[in-house]
């Protein structure tokens, strides 16, 4: 009941803000350039949320006692870390323009912070290596599924043997 009331409030506020915007009310809503990055960032947050939910249910249902599902749990965890990583990268260079990045030549990358934000360059540089998180995530998924295939094979043979 409480959740429903919250959801209703969000919808009312959203509709209210849209309807009370005089400019927008005059024509079809325009979708300018910043919308893309906002939608993308929200997708990252949604992905983090859904992976968190997956971990929660895997643990509640005690599926993590089986190696296969445990590996899938690790995969979800690495996906969460990867999403945080990419979220930070997008935040720094595209969303808020905290840094400006360019490639002076093939072998080098120039990272320049706007303002006095020392240390952000190194954080950005490391965060750009995001495949170090998403590849292990897929590797754990693959391993987990492989283990499940093996376990179901053992069970099926066991049943047949019986």
């Amino acid at each position: 009941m409480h959740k429903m009331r919250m959801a209703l409030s969000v919808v009312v506020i959203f509709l209210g803000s849209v309807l009370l915007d005089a400019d927008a009310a005059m024509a079809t809503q325009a979708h300018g350039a910043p919308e893309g990055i906002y939608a993308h960032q929200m997708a990252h947050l949604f992905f983090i949320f859904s992976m968190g939910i997956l971990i929660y249910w895997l643990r509640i249902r005690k599926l993590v006692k089986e190696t296969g599902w445990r590996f899938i749990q690790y995969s979800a965890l690495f996906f969460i870390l990867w999403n945080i990583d990419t979220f930070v990268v997008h935040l720094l260079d595209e969303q808020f323009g905290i840094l400006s990045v360019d490639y002076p030549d093939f072998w080098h990358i120039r990272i320049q912070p706007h303002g006095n934000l020392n240390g952000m360059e190194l954080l950005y540089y490391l965060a750009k290596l995001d495949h170090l998180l998403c590849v292990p995530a897929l590797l754990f998924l693959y391993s987990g599924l492989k283990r499940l295939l093996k376990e179901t094979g053992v069970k099926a043979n066991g049943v047949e043997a019986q």
Partner: protein
Amino acid sequence: MILQAFPIWAVDLTGSILMIVFSFLSLRIVFALKKRDPNNVVWTYMLMFCFGLAAFAVSRSAGHILKQILLLSGHAAVWAPIRPFSGAINTFMFVFVGSVTLFFERVWNVYQQILKDKQVIQAAHEQLLYLNQNLEGLVTERSEALVLSEQKYRRIFEVSRDMILVAKKDGEIVDLNPAGHAMLGRDGTDRPITGCLFGQFFSKAEDWDVIRQKISKQGFILNFETDLKVRDGSNIRALISGSLDKGLSPDADTVLFLVKDIEERRSMEKQLAQADKLASIGQLSAGIAHEINNPLGIILGYTQLLLRKEKVESERYQDLKTIEKHVRSCKAIVKDLLNFAKSSRPKLEEIRINDAIEDVLGFIQHHSRAEHIEMIREYDHRIPPLMLDEKKIKQVLLNLIMNAKHAVGHQGTIKLSTELNAAANQVAIKVKDTGYGIEKNNLSKIFDPFFSTKPTGEGTGLGLSVSYGIIKSHGGDIFVDSEPGKGAQFTVVLPVL
């Protein structure tokens, strides 16, 4: 800050390729899982999940690789229009995979429910299969068990010595076992008892009402004593127990009665009570007789002494004679009482009972007029000589025959019979007359001392009491069967020693 770009290019390219490889390998394994168990909804779910990831890996990695190639080859302008598509597809795939992931718990619950249902169906299927394969055998087995059970309970019903009666709540008889038919004096010629009311067999209708009320109230009745009417009009004493058997509906309720015939037991109890009573009277009589006998002897002695001194024609002599006569009479009564009380041991000697009866008959015919009375003799000549006190046994026979003669009156029949029961080692002597018989309420008193139905002065009422005492002192028994208007039969049972 300027840093080396190579690690970024290298990780980006290698990672992109590995993402595609691992996502497709994962997809392949899920296909294998799905192939192994096509109906497993979890694998269907994982297939969607991996498909989303693979699509995401392709869109993202292809985009990254293409981007690097175009940028490195100096075609940044070409990448510019592709970039929004690549980003949008990436975003869409995120949302797709995330959305699919949210359904994991629901899918898992569905899968668990399916597993449970499957197990239940499997168990039911196996049971059905077993029943199907063994149905004939199971039916035969159950039928045989049912037949055996039916036979067993039918046998109990058939061979029970007590009446088993099944009736509806209103008393309508549903079934009655053979013992019940016999108890009620019914045979094959009677109309079927089914449908008759049990209540009509009760001598007292109120007893049946009590039974019905108790069963209706408490569901059972225990050891209720009552009289049941037998077909020939007589009554039997019965002990009734019954319990209500609840059916599927109130109309289907039945009452199961167990009825015991306690007529014989009651008769034996009466006989025992009679024997006890006679034994008590005997003890009392013996005590009184002993106390009276001595004074009587003294009175008789002094009377005889006084008689010697008196002249025969004197009035005093006649008075003394009267005293002597009555004292002797008293002494005879005392002697009879002692005989009844078995106080004197019989003097046993070997005698033939048939000859003894003949002697007594001869004596009676000699001393009293019995010309219109028919004497029927039925002697069993197999009877061996018996060890008896001849004088006392003859006294018993004399009492019985004289009683019979008195009962018959001027005309009638007296039947005298003897019978050897070799199995019981006993001899029965029966004296049967065609007189009026004995009233039912007098039957229990006839062996009591001084009980007599004869007019005052005609009998002392000690004849049968004395006979009872003599027979008991010989280890035998005496009893009577009689119905008013049908004569009486006295039976003396003596042991063959």
